[in-house]
Each structure stands twice: as structure tokens, then as C-alpha cells.
């Protein structure tokens, strides 16, 4: 039964998401709905005049007709683009507003709910909702804000527009009508989200966020090496040992205090046996001869706090505590 359910889930996922395409669909030159076909149809008469002018070697007239076609098409593309970015902004603002309300409502509910189980349910639901929201943001908008996407599309379009403006000065022999139509298509595509995402990937300046101006300025503070799982695990290992020793000393029960003090003396003796750690004890003015367990415990704190956190001597101190403090 479980296997059937699993197969069913996998089939649903595959058929709803579809198989990936590995190449574009074949070009259909007779498709009347393609963008290029619509341009050609709309400017059929001008294109005929262009061909006639080229054939009769009236190249200045052909150039004029070509530029006329370009300048006639571009405003239509600008209008469509304006509608597109208005719809994106409005749509995304609305979605974000509703999603924010849901998150805020759930967060407020956590604050006023009693009981572990309801809190658990709320926590899981809120986590799932945030995960879904992040996934949508990542997959549909690559986690970019709408102003950044619009700015990138504006930039892409401006770049192509500049190319078109420059090339309009060229003669039809170097910039024929076909190349002009290709630039029109490029201008249209420059105002799409796909192109914006690609351009943002290449734009490394956008990837690196500058640090805020109000940096804390540190002088004479060396950088500390980062830690890893193993180093952190061995650093925290003495903590439960020391916690137990402290609890025993704080209990004021004579036997417990004596046992804890004895263990602390053993730790100190281990540290005194190593020249590196013995030096530290001397500087701190503490030794295994100290009868007061609380002072011995404080001595460990004092020594530890004087060392750089990534000082290799620390591992010796940690090992001495773990080996002798239990």
C-alpha cells in the first residue's frame, strides 16, 4: 500500500511538472502569431516599398523607409512594456501584502496562544508558509525585488535602443531591413524577466552588497579563526563537567564540596604537568595547593579568558578538565 502511494505521488509530480525541454521548438515560418510575422504583416506595404527602392538602387529612400519602420514599431513595444511592468509591480505588491498579513497574523497568534501542541502546529504551519513564499520568490523572481528587475530591464532596453539609434545612421547595405527587424525583436526581448535574470547573474556588482557606513572600527583586535564542528564539540565538552562541579560547590554540602574540590585539584595537577599550561597557572597565580574549590573554579575561568579563543593551548585545558573533572 505504501509503495502504491509512493508511486502515485511520484507520477503526479512528474506529470504536473512536466519533462524538461532540451531545445527550442522547431521554427514555424508560417506561424501568423509570431512576433516577426506580425511585424511583417503590419508593415507589408512599407517592406514592398523598401524592396522596390533597393531594387531601383534608390538607397537613400530605402534607408528612410527602414528607419520609418523602426521608429513606428518602437513606441508600440514601449507601451506594451509599460503595461507589463505595471502589472508585475501591482501583482507582486498585492501578493506580498497578503503574504505579510498571513505571516504577521500567525506571529501574533503565537504570542497569544497557550499550550505546547497548538504552538507546535502554529510553528510548523508558519515555517511551511515561509518556505513556500521563499520558494515562489526564488523560482519566479530569483529573489530579486521588483525595482531591481525593472531597473535591469530598463537598462537592457536602453542598451538595445542605443544600438538601434546608432545603426539608423548606417546605409541599407550594412544595416538592411532584416537586421533592423532582428533589433526590434531584441528590443522587445530586452524587456522580459528572463533577460533581466541573465543580466543580473553577470552583473557581479549587484551580487556584492556594500557594508553599511556605520561599521564598528576596531584597532589592534586580531581576526579570530573560524571554528568547525569538531573544534566546537571539543570546546563545549568541558561545560557539563564544570557545571556539575559548580553545582556541587554551591550546594555547601561538605562531602560534595570536598569531592568537587578534589576533582578541581586533579585538573590543576594535570595542567601543572604540562609546561605550556603550567606557565599560564603561574601567571594567574593559582595552583593545585589552593584549598578553596570556588577559587580553583574561578582560576580556570580567569586563565581561559586571558587566552585568544583560537589559541591551541586551549585544547590542553579542555582535555585536562574532561579527563579529571568527571
Amino acid at each position, binding site marked *: 500500500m505504501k509503495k502504491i502511494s509512493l508511486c502515485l505521488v511520484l507520477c503526479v509530480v512528474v506529470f504536473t511538472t512536466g519533462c524538461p525541454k532540451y531545445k527550442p521548438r522547431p521554427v514555424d515560418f508560417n506561424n501568423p502569431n509570431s512576433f516577426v510575422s506580425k511585424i511583417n504583416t503590419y508593415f507589408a506595404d512599407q517592406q514592398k516599398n523598401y524592396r522596390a527602392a533597393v531594387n531601383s538602387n534608390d538607397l537613400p529612400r530605402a534607408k528612410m523607409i527602414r528607419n520609418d519602420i523602426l521608429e513606428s514599431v518602437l513606441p508600440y513595444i514601449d507601451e506594451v512594456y509599460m503595461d507589463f511592468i505595471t502589472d508585475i509591480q501591482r501583482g507582486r505588491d498585492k501578493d506580498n501584502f497578503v503574504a505579510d498579513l498571513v505571516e504577521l497574523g500567525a506571529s501574533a497568534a503565537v504570542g497569544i496562544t497557550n499550550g505546547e501542541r497548538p504552538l507546535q502546529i502554529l510553528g510548523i504551519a508558519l515555517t511551511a508558509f515561509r518556505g513556500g513564499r521563499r520558494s515562489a520568490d526564488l523560482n519566479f523572481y530569483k529573489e530579486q525585488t521588483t525595482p531591481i528587475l525593472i531597473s535591469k530591464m530598463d537598462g537592457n532596453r536602453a542598451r538595445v535602443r542605443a544600438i538601434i539609434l546608432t545603426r539608423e545612421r548606417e546605409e541599407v547595405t550594412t544595416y538592411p531591413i532584416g537586421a533592423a527587424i532582428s533589433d526590434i525583436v531584441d528590443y522587445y526581448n530586452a524587456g522580459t524577466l528572463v533577460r533581466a535574470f541573465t543580466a543580473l547573474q553577470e552583473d557581479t556588482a549587484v*551580487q556584492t552588497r556594500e557594508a553599511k557606513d556605520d561599521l564598528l572600527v576596531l584597532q589592534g583586535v586580531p581576526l*579570530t579563526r573560524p571554528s568547525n564542528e569538531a573544534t566546537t564539540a571539543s570546546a563545549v565538552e568541558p561545560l557539563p563537567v564544570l557545571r556539575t562541579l559548580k553545582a556541587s560547590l554551591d550546594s555547601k554540602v561538605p562531602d560534595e564540596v570536598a569531592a568537587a574540590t578534589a576533582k578541581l585539584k586533579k585538573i590543576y595537577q594535570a595542567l601543572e604537568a604540562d609546561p605550556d599550561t603550567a606557565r599560564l597557572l603561574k601567571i594567574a597565580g593559582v595552583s593545585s595547593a589552593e584549598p578553596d574549590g570556588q577559587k580553583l573554579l574561578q582560576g580556570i*575561568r580567569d586563565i581561559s579568558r586571558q587566552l585568544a579563543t583560537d589559541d591551541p593551548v586551549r585544547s590542553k585545558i579542555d582535555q585536562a578538565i574532561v579527563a579529571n573533572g568527571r
Partner: protein
Amino acid sequence: MPGPAKPSSHTVAYGANDIDSLKTLELSCERDEAHLFANIKKVQLASADGVNATAVTYEDVDDFDMGHLTFVQFTTDVDKQSQMAIHKTQGETFQCEGQAFVNNIAVNVLVFREKAAQ
């Protein structure tokens, strides 16, 4: 009559290039809490002798309840509220809010301490 002595604090700087993930920062802070017998108090962006770094301030404590930290990144205020609520449902205690360099990029972070094991 003088009041109680202010606990000592330590500032540790982690290079912006050295912290490759929030998990690395979390492990580093857990290590340093244990070594300093202190609790994390502040996380902020810094410049250490001209190099970008994350400055973490720890304050000495008398107990040995350190470690078990959780660092999470947040983007907006709504995101922050959601994270606070989620971690509250998990029994974690909020420690501080600040900014850190992760892979040389400044990010907003929240720091929580996990519920102590029973």
C-alpha cells in the same frame, strides 16, 4: 554604596572572508562562548585594522550555560517577526539581533539559544 560590578566583556572579530556560512559563524560563537565562559550579547559589522569583519561581543557569566546557539538570517521586518515566532514555538530564547558578514556580504541575523535538554 557602590552597585554590583559590571560584567567584563570581550570583543572577538571574525574576518568577512573567513565566514563562509551562517553555520560557521554559529559554530565559532559557540566555541568562543565556551572558551570565554561568556554569553553572546552583540553581533555587528566592523572594520578590524581596515579589514571587514564581524565583531561579536560576549559578556562574562558565572554559570556554565553556554552554547546551543541558533543563527538565522532575516530580510524584512515581517520576516524577523515570523522567525521570532517560529523559534519561540521551538522553545528557544532570543539573545540578540545584529548584522554579520557571510561570504563578504552583510546580512541581518537573529541569535537564539536552544531549549536546554531535559
